């Protein structure tokens, strides 16, 4: 280690050079430092211009790839989203990858939710400063924003043979047709979840959810593409095709009505599970994987997930290479590795979300035969096309408008 290596932060570097060039004295250092800080403060104030302010598609300037010399890749993912061995404290599939390729993977569970992680890295991405990650994972709508803003590198699909194993329904998503910038990590549903015993009957539709006897016992997701999406589907709007602001507004009005009537108790992110366990809510609009976890955590088979008759939503989390990464080739190798059907089956057996890889179902026979026919991990293509819809990618203007409307609807 070279202890005299200059600091990587350009602000600090400029301060040091300023100090070094000015015949250093204590007072001089302080004065120069203050001037530098003030300059730093002011320059940081200037907001960056949009990537394509001159019009036309953004021109991406990719950093020089050093994958051949630096055999590393840094992977930022969501919590509890990769097979983990409690005994050895390692991720078995990652270990196998490192052994096979000689590439060292740093895996970090950095991402708690889309908004806060995006807010954290955005200033650096805009300034083209390395965020020290080579892969990050965002949900469809945030992936859409990242691609639109030119924050991700295109993938060299020709070097990723396994990428062709992606399930057909995930191939031509509206935010990234042909998957040139992203690859699905896992997918899931939003639908109706409830406790059979406490509700005392079967729930099949949103009408059932809004029945008077469940007043104040319903929870909904703060992710509007799921909550409003389900309600739009219920109102007969196809969320995967173009729809109008009026149609969106109509669904939001329905949510507002149900909230102010006291039917929907709270609209929440991940923490809605606490309300289900504490009895504050006994049914609601939920994510499929959570109900499976609730079942196994509480050892209570009464927890049930159903797809509403008016259809549920299908969402995905997508791996992408940030624009600042200098290890794109290594990152691609890692993505490609996770699209090997056997590896994908191993991950699916652990995380129990919808596996995006074609052929993993066959390989699951070797991993865990009891999961081969699990419809929540390997739903058929026909089922997905018939029973679910994906919320279409929004334009930046719609994105702004709709997030504002939704924020008002939940009392902010």
């Amino acid at each position, binding site marked *: 280690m070279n202890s005299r290596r200059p600091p990587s932060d350009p602000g600090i570097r400029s301060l040091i050079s300023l100090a070094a060039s000015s015949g250093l004295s204590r007072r001089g250092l302080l004065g120069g430092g203050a001037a530098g800080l003030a300059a730093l403060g002011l320059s*940081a104030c200037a*907001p960056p211009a*949009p990537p394509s302010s001159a019009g036309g598609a953004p021109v991406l300037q990719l950093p020089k790839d050093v994958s051949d010399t630096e055999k590393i890749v840094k992977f930022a993912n969501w919590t509890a989203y990769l097979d983990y061995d409690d005994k050895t404290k390692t991720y078995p599939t990652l270990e196998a990858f490192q052994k096979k390729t000689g590439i060292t993977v740093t895996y970090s569970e950095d991402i708690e939710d889309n908004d806060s992680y995006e807010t954290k890295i955005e200033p650096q991405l805009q300034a083209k400063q390395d965020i020290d990650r080579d892969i990050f994972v965002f949900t469809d709508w945030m992936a859409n924003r990242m691609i639109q*803003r030119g924050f991700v590198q295109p993938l060299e699909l020709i070097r990723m043979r396994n990428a062709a194993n992606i399930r057909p329904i995930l191939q031509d998503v509206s935010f990234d047709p042909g998957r040139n910038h992203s690859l699905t990590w896992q997918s899931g549903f939003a639908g109706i979840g409830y406790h059979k015993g406490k509700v005392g009957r079967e729930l099949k539709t949103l009408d059932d959810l809004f029945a008077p006897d469940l007043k104040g016992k319903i929870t909904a997701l703060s992710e509007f593409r799921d909550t409003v999406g389900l309600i739009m589907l219920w109102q007969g709007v196809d969320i995967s095709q173009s729809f109008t602001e009026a149609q969106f507004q109509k669904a939001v009005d329905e949510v507002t009505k149900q909230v102010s009537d006291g039917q929907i108790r709270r609209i929440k992110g991940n923490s809605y599970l606490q*309300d289900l366990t504490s009895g504050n809510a006994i049914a609601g609009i939920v994510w499929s994987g959570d109900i499976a976890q609730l079942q196994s955590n509480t050892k209570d088979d009464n927890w049930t997930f159903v797809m509403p008759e008016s259809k549920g939503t299908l969402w995905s989390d997508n791996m992408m290479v940030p624009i600042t990464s200098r290890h794109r080739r290594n990152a691609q190798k890692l993505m490609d590795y996770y699209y090997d059907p056997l590896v994908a089956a191993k991950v699916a057996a652990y995380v129990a979300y919808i596996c995006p890889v074609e052929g993993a179902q066959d390989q699951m026979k070797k991993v865990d035969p009891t999961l081969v026919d699990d419809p929540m991990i390997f739903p058929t293509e026909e089922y997905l096309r018939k029973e679910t819809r994906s919320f279409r990618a929004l334009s*930046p203007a719609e994105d702004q408008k709709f997030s504002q409307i939704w924020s008002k609807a939940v*009392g*902010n």
Partner: protein
Amino acid sequence: MTTAFAASAREAGDPQLTPPRRGGRRRGWTPYLLLVPGLLWLTLFFIVPLVQLGSASLQSQWPGAPGYYYRDVNVGNYVDALSSYGVHFLRSLAYAGLATVLCFVIAFPLAYAMAFKAGRWRNVMLILVVAPFFTSFILRTIAWRQILADDAPLARTLNALHLLPGGHITETWVAVVAGLTYNFLPFMVLPIYTSLERADPRLLEAGRDLYADRLTTLRTVTIPLAAPGILAGTLLTFIPAAGDYVNAELLGSDTSTKMVGNVINSQFFTVLGGYPTAAALSISLMILILVLVLGYVRRFGTEEVL
């Protein structure tokens, strides 16, 4: 002072009083050097962000590119923010004010008991007041959500007695104010306790000896003695409570209990293009609290409190 004195001594031509030059210079430098870490800290983590926040609150959106801005002096951001979210401001002030009053009502007798009546239990009580800080603020608030839950004993009992109009405790303003009161109580107890503990108990005895009844003693002796602590306690409770969003998020509802902190959070994190609004709201909140606190301190921050 020393150098001035030394200078005048020199002018008077008294060589005996002239201190060695080097020592005098060193004394002149030391206070500034001691200030350096603090000043650097303040500049880097207070002044620079504040300037940035102010500049963000005035910037305008890049036409046709939500999420991008250009530098501007767009006062309209403030007008929009305050007209859309004035209700949230009032709510924040009301909840924080209510929580401060409740904290005082709970904290004063407690601090009094600790200072004068606790005897050997004093340290135990002190530890009990501080102990909750050993767990995270968020965790404790989530725990309250469980304690106040529909299936928990409290809500069940109240429901059985038909004392709960809406059927539940959480998702009401009562729960939010209760959460604020609980979370900021130690900030009220500790300063009042410190003031009372320093007070001379003989002054209270003298009050009784001079034929004041208990209430008069409290009003004219005890409370004035505790005044610095009360002032510090109310500020330490009110200011963070007015900006708090955790209690409203975890214990409140989606319709009528969100505070200004929740709006700032949602404008900053979830609404695309909400930065200027969030910044304008933050600056407004800061100014509002500053004005209120200055008025309060000018009114009560003298020796003759109450």
